[in-house]
């Protein structure tokens, strides 16, 4: 308890520090110079209607590469970590209750729909809210649903890993192409920018987002899949 009260003091002090920060903060009235550049030149430079996407995929595409890498390495660690403990133990009879009829039927209906939705979200990432991450998450949710409906089903890690790797390598390669064909690493202007607002526009952004979506989706699925494994074995 002594520690808690001590920490209360520390936290209060931290709160005061944070408060000075908030106190110094005044809501922006106008865009920052960088954002202004994005707003003014973004449509012409990048060609994505969704400026957030423009920033995420192109202007700060390098961040996104890192972001994808984080999920990737997390999945790798989890896979490695969990497999180490369980790979050797023999498969035990699963004691999970099979899912209810309703859930399994509903899921069979829902899963294709969700997959399509996910793909839609990342394909349209440069036009509407959403993108690779959101789409990937939706795809992963579809697989979660699949696993919930049929706990015994085993995800094919091989294929997932394949998708993960290929899309990752493709992401890097497309980035690399940017060096040769356009202004630099991860430049989207390898392809024509196209008509502003059209599906096939904004250079390689749709393509990149597809790979990102696939990669994020497969990575998240991978994590879930590994966790699902743990539910089966001890």
């Amino acid at each position, binding site marked *: 308890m002594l520690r808690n009260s001590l920490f209360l003091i520390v936290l209060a002090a931290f709160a005061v520090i944070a408060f000075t920060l908030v106190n110094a903060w005044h809501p922006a009235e106008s865009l920052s110079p960088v954002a202004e550049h994005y707003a003014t030149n973004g449509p012409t430079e990048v060609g994505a209607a969704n400026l957030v996407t423009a920033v995420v995929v192109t202007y700060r*595409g390098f961040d996104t590469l890192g972001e994808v890498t984080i999920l990737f390495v997390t999945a790798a660690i989890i896979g490695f970590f969990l497999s180490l403990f369980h790979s050797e133990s023999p498969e035990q009879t699963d004691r999970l209750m099979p899912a209810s009829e309703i859930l399994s039927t509903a899921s069979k209906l829902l899963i294709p729909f969700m997959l399509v939705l996910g793909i839609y979200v990342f394909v349209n990432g440069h036009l509407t809210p959403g993108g690779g991450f959101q789409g990937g998450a939706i795809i992963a949710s579809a697989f979660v649903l699949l696993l919930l409906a049929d706990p015994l089903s085993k995800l094919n890690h091989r294929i997932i890993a394949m998708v993960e790797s290929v899309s990752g390598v493709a992401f890097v390669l497309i980035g690399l192409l940017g060096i040769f064909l356009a202004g630099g690493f991860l430049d989207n202007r390898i392809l024509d920018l196209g008509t502003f607002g059209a599906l096939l526009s904004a250079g390689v952004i749709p393509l990149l987002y597809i790979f990102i979506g696939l990669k994020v989706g497969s990575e998240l699925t991978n994590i879930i899949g590994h966790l699902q494994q743990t539910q089966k074995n001890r």
Partner: protein
Amino acid sequence: MVTPVYLVVSLLGIAFALGILGKPLRKVAGVITLATMAFASYISVSWFMGLWFGEQSAAMVFTAGFRPPFSINLLMGFEEAFFLSLVNLAGLFGTLFLYRTLMKSGVNAFVILLILIMGLNVIIMTRDLFNLFVFMEISSIATAGIIILNPHQKTISAGFKYMLATGIVAGILLLGIIFFYHFTGTLNLDDTIRVNIEAWKGITVALFFILIAVIVELKPFPANGWGLDVYESVPGGIGMLISTASASAMLYVVYKLLPIAPPVFFQILTTIGIGTFFFSNLLALKQTHPNRLLGYSSVGQIGLITGVIGLSHFLGNQFGLIAASLLISHYLAKAGLFWISGILNKTHIREWSVIRQNRLLLFLFSLFVFLLLGFPPFPAFYGKWELIMQLAGSGQFFWLGAILVASLLEGVYLFRWLGYAMKLEAPAGEPLRVGWNQYIPLGIFGLATFVTGYYATHLSSYGSLINLIPLAFALGFFLIDFLPVYIKNTLAIAGMGFYFYYLYPDLNGFDMVFSAIFLVGGILTLLAGYAYKGKRIGFYPTALMMFAGLIGLVEAKTTLEFFFAWEVMTAGSYFLIIRGKKSMEHALSYMLFSLGGAYLILAGFSLASIGQSTIVLDILATAPLYAPLIFILLAIGFMTKTASIGLHIWLPGAHAEAETDVSPMVSSILLKAGVFGLIILIIRMGEQHLGSLSILYILSWIGAITAVLGNLMAAFQEDAKRLLAYSSIGVLGYILFGLALFSHLGWLAAIAIAVTHFLFKALLFLAIGGVVWRLKTKEMYRMGGLITRMPFTFISVLIGIIVLAGIPPLSGFAGKWIFTNAVIEKEWFFQGALISFAGIIAFLYCFRLIHTIFLGQLKDEHRKVNEAPFWILAPQYIILIIVMVFSVLPNSLLHPIGEMLKPYFPDGALTWQGQYATSIFGYWNGTWVMYVVVAIFLLVFLWLWFMNRKAYRVKQFNIVFAAERPFRPETTHFAYNFFAPYKKAIGFLAEPGVTRFWGHVSEGSHAIAELIRRIYSGNGQVYLFQIMAFIVVVYLISFGGF
């Protein structure tokens, strides 16, 4: 030149692609990983080279084809290339070292490693704050991944704490970054920051958040429990990656952020950094787990470099050299030590004695320890030197002192550990198995220590003047260590002889005297080496290293050269001393006192260099400021080597436990290094005053007390070599006193005693060493009656003690005679009386030495003991001849010394007429004294012989007392506690009070360490609490309130 973006592309692309590999191809994953890392290393090293030689200019990589600040850009400059090389090489060799472990863990392990290294690469290169955040997260997640490469309960909990801590820190960093963006409108470091005055407070707080988060990632004290736990739990190979690659990258981040940091931040950085350095080393004193110990050391070293960054304003253009050399030393040493720890895989530092199964590993271990502590010729030596010089130059004395004290603490545990490894009984267990993939990285890093040391020598401003040839000659013996003793011995003698011949024309004055003691003395003592059989692995390189250092002292023209040689000598002698069977703790205390002394010398030199344009030794004479302080620092520094009272406790053990021919080396030769230092000091700085008190006056008292107490303690020893060791303390007390007299006669006596001490102490140590060699014991009461078995040795000892005691007609008397004259001249009677008192106490132990060993009854078990080996006797008799020459012709020694002193002390010199010396007060004719004594002796002897011609010899044991024949010879040999009544009367003076004092110092610091390290309770939440409290406290300190 390959575009730096390929660093990212290759590492990341291969990491992604490894997943595609099917099962059959998994085996090549390791090879691919290594190849990728090699490629990355190639890129970074080639950039580094290119930038260094000026063939390249810094390159900027613009991602997405837009200019910053609109997109993220990566910079490849000189510093970046340097750090990238460090990180990538660490990655490459770290992976190679872990190769087999990783192969067992599967492809994912390689993926994680690749991504860790990739993350660190980007952290170094990126110029964008948010990007920095992202890749810091990548590397911390990847680190969490490699922590559990070897999952057991400890690594998992350590990894969890690590994740939590870095998670919170990352959150704070993110807050800082976003507010930074809000206040400045940019995320780019290169973007000119438009500081809005109204938002000043906000921007500083935002910056504070960013910087403090980065600092916490460096594991500052006390917010570093999580980091230490990680170091403890992970195997060495992984600890190496965290300690070298990650830490280097994070250090660079701090450095990179400096331009945007407010000025107060530098002070914070200094305080945190050096505070961490100090406390980590303090707490490490109590640590016994090797990896955690290395963790403390890592944290401390990184703290030091952080502190250096904080002090960069004061370091001028030397900042780069200092920081880089310290970093490289940390990098190479920690990598090597962690790797060795990984191979040994022990949980207690005492168990490291298994390392002796593999001499190469032991060699590397000691190499890395010395590298870490900044011994020459390794890079940190120059780094520390420049650091201290610059700090002194800018008046940062507090930090200077803190750094030196902390370095000393570091020495304590590292050398204790090294001692354990070299001396403790090895626990039973499986034999060590070291794979080729482990040898390669260790070997390369071991070599790199020398290579970087060589370059550091040339980069430092005066380093290129240093004569590395003797050291190289010494180290060369490591390569031919497989040869038998007699070849190496001959080579060593030839080398030293040649060097003396080579130096001879340039020598004069003090240099001549001391190089004769060092080199000729060295050759004489080395002669005894022929008595050894086999290979004597490790003896010759270290012995020659010591001699190289000693001769370097003589050759030194600058303070840097002097300090270099001093450290080389210390290192060499440490290894010599620790060769003794029971030398572990003695070598440790020797090393610690030497280290402490060396740091005092360093501090003294640095103070002396303030306001001077060069660093030649003569700056001591012209030091404009702090002259008394400089004098005191240097004097104490040198007095650790001369073992003056209070600083003497290392000597008896170190000298007594050493090997037969090492004892004379360290006692009769090595101690003179301190004398030489004092001469250099006093001759340049003369008489300094502390208030109205002359420091030399204080020194004279110290000298006198040392002489009395040293001799007194010698008289009470039971161990023959210990007795001689204490006697050395006493004699060095005389020398100190003589030097403190600061007059012609005083110095004449001091130097004459220095020379004769070399002679008789070498003689006695060799003779007693020969006895110990045969008898296998050093306890005098276990000996007795050896005069019949070892007559030649007896004669040496007899002559030795007569010289030692200063009894006419032998040359030892010269010293006494001159001393008395000098004392009366100077009118320091009380010290003089003490000195003379000490001289008489010398009789006590002299007699005891010869009596208990050679006289009395021979023990039963020694009836068949043989005379000492020829090669141990040979140098003794050479010395005997020299002693006799000096005795018959005293002016052959004293006159040249007197001439040498005349330029410095023209007044009060002796007048010589042939062998007839006249001082102001008295006169003395050594030759005639000899004639008279010999004549009387012969006369009396002939008389006795004539009268006694029919005497017959009886067995010595043929005695009766109290009407009984004693039944065992032992009962008739009075030897134990020989001076019991004397001890009863004034033994209290010889109480080991000083030893107790240092014991309390040691215990006290350990107790403090024990107390403070309780903060690392092992509870993750406590660690987080500490981080938060640390942040708040640093905030309060740096802003002086909220």
